[in-house]
């Protein structure tokens, strides 16, 4: 058990290292570096930049060193909270991201919870009433949900609320709370705004998971131990929730590994359409203006979210699956 957790932990560290390399590559990708863009900016605004100043700036930012030294410097900076400077805002990246990280976490966690609650509930319903109208309806909605791009769904939902209820559903806060410091009223306001984006983000993954849950549960319900339990006089409901559902939840927990990246990924684009104050729109703006330190840091943050989330799901699997707990 300890060996298993340790192994997963080491994997997580390894993945995080790979993530940091990827982030650095992203930052370096566009032609030209931070400095050349800074200089063009200064020149565009009419200021003269002389050669010695450029050289000293280069030395200051370490741009005259080889690539791996630059990487190591940047990497060491991360641990001191130095993620580079945002060109667009002219402020350290960490200051800009602040609140948005927390809100991204809230939105994604809420979507994750909704995905599992919905898919387990609908999956159990579909499996116990196989080939009923409800089952077919769930399958049909699932297929369409699987095939509708999240940004299109977000757009449709916005149009729907706008025309039917004359309501604007963009954002996470009402106007009066948008730039306020945190307060009880603001939290309540956010909770009121959460359902629409969370449902839009969750629907695609839910469609996939309902099929997983339904399939596994159908397999379990056909097994002999279920019949035995029934003949011994257990009620249908008790049998269902005591054994097959618990078995079927196992593979569901191990799916967090691909559900969470899917949610975060879809969440980013939904956030752009619905202009949520999360990481997605900030990343989009940063990319459009080639503000690479900010963009790279945001990609890294989303990556950390999924990698750590997967690690937690590995630990959860240990809790629900005694085979893993006892074997290793």
């Amino acid at each position: 058990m300890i060996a298993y957790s340790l192994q997963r932990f080491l994997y997580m560290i390894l993945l995080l290292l790979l993530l940091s390399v990827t982030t650095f590559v992203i930052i370096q990708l566009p032609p030209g570096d931070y400095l050349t863009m800074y200089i063009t900016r200064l020149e565009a605004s009419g200021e003269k930049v002389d050669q010695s100043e450029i050289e000293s700036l280069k030395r200051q930012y370490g741009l005259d060193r080889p690539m791996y030294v630059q990487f190591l410097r940047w990497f060491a900076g991360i641990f001191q909270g130095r993620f580079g400077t945002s060109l667009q805002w002219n402020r350290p990246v960490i200051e800009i991201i602040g609140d948005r990280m927390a809100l991204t976490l809230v939105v994604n966690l809420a979507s994750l919870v909704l995905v599992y609650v919905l898919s387990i509930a609908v999956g159990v319903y579909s499996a116990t009433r196989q080939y009923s109208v409800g089952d077919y309806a769930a399958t049909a909605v699932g297929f369409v949900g699987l095939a509708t791009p999240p940004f299109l769904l977000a757009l449709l939902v916005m149009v729907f609320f706008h025309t039917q209820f004359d309501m604007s559903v963009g954002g996470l806060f009402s106007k009066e709370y948008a730039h306020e410091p945190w307060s009880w009223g603001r939290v309540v306001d956010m909770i009121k705004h959460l359902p629409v984006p969370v449902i839009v983000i969750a629907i695609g993954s839910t469609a996939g998971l309902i099929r997983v849950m339904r399939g596994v549960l159908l397999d379990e319900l056909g097994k002999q131990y279920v019949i035995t339990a029934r003949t011994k006089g257990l009620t249908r409901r008790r049998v269902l929730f005591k054994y097959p559902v618990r078995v079927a939840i196992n593979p569901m927990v191990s799916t967090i590994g691909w559900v969470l990246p899917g949610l975060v990924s879809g969440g980013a684009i939904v956030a752009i359409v619905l202009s949520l104050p999360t990481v997605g729109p900030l990343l989009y703006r940063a990319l459009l203006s080639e503000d690479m330190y900010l963009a790279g840091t945001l990609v890294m943050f989303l990556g950390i979210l999924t990698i750590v989330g997967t690690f937690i799901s590995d630990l959860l699997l240990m809790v629900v699956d005694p085979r893993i707990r006892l074997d290793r």
Partner: protein
Amino acid sequence: MTASTVAQAASRRETTAQERFFMASQAQLMWRKFVRHRLAIVGGCILLVMYVSAMVCEFIAPYDLHRRNSDYIYAPPQLLRFMHPENGFTLRPFVYGYTQERNPETFALDFTVDREQVFPLRFLNRGDEVKFWGLFTTDRHLLGVEEPGYVFLLGTDKLGRDIFSRIFYGARISLTIGLVGVAISFVLGCLFGGISGYFGGVSDTIIQRLVEFLLVIPTIPLWMALAAAIPREMPQLQVYFLVTIIISLVAWSGLARVVRGKIISLREEDYVLAARIAGETDMKIIRTHMLPGFMSYLIVNMTLAIPGMVLAETALSFLNLGIRPPLVSWGTLLTEAQQVQVVISYPWLLYPGLVLVITLVAFNFLGDGLRDAADPYK
């Protein structure tokens, strides 16, 4: 005829049916199971129609991709009609023209259907001159109306361009990106999955960590970051291939997993051991003995991977990070529908999205059918 001969004939018929089942090749068995899956057939047919029409979109689309009708900006879709006010029912469908009036309150141009203007649809109509596949020019289009009439079956956009025509042109990009992307991922997936599964050891560990990494990273943000680095002034065709490569660079990981899993299970089979003892090279063993064993699974997985790629391209182009005008894909068509107000006033701008959803559902149906057909235990 006695009863015994009847029974004999019946049993003979049964054996031939059974024999045919036993003698059928793997492909024949799969085909039989596949055609029984009705949704998969429907999906397959939809996709076939879409790919063929994307191939000959210059001919099928009534208008050229860049044809602007500056008099008909944001014209709503015209209904195809068969009931003529004077002549009664006609087999030749027609559309009514529009008259435009300035709305005194909103100052927007309002379109009203004008029953005086009748434009009958003509087969092999002469219209815009287009270059077919860049090879020869033609002005024949499958359907159209005579100038100065106009037919906008799905309305027009902000420059008065026919959305119906543009969807066909967009299909060419959106649908082929899925195929090209899957081809690239197939090569990468087979290569890395094969090395990982067949040789095992250190290479397996390294490749598996890489695959795990690619699977756990949220794809759209990564794709956005990579696509944003494509220089703005790059030629169209290069952008197309770069976008495809970027998408498949991340997407091969799923296929590699399938290949690895299958190879590991086949590696232990006796016939592979026999081939190795007989002195066959590793490459030959993989190619002739192992690949056919899991080819069907691979095809299924590829079919199910295509919708993800089409979706990725659409999402990137929707955000102006993927395919850029003047090249059109369904994603670039949908960029016009980014603002809610625009969509509410001109809902027909969402038609490309509807076509996209139908395509993706069709791919999922087809993939499901193929999966059931390829599964020998079902």
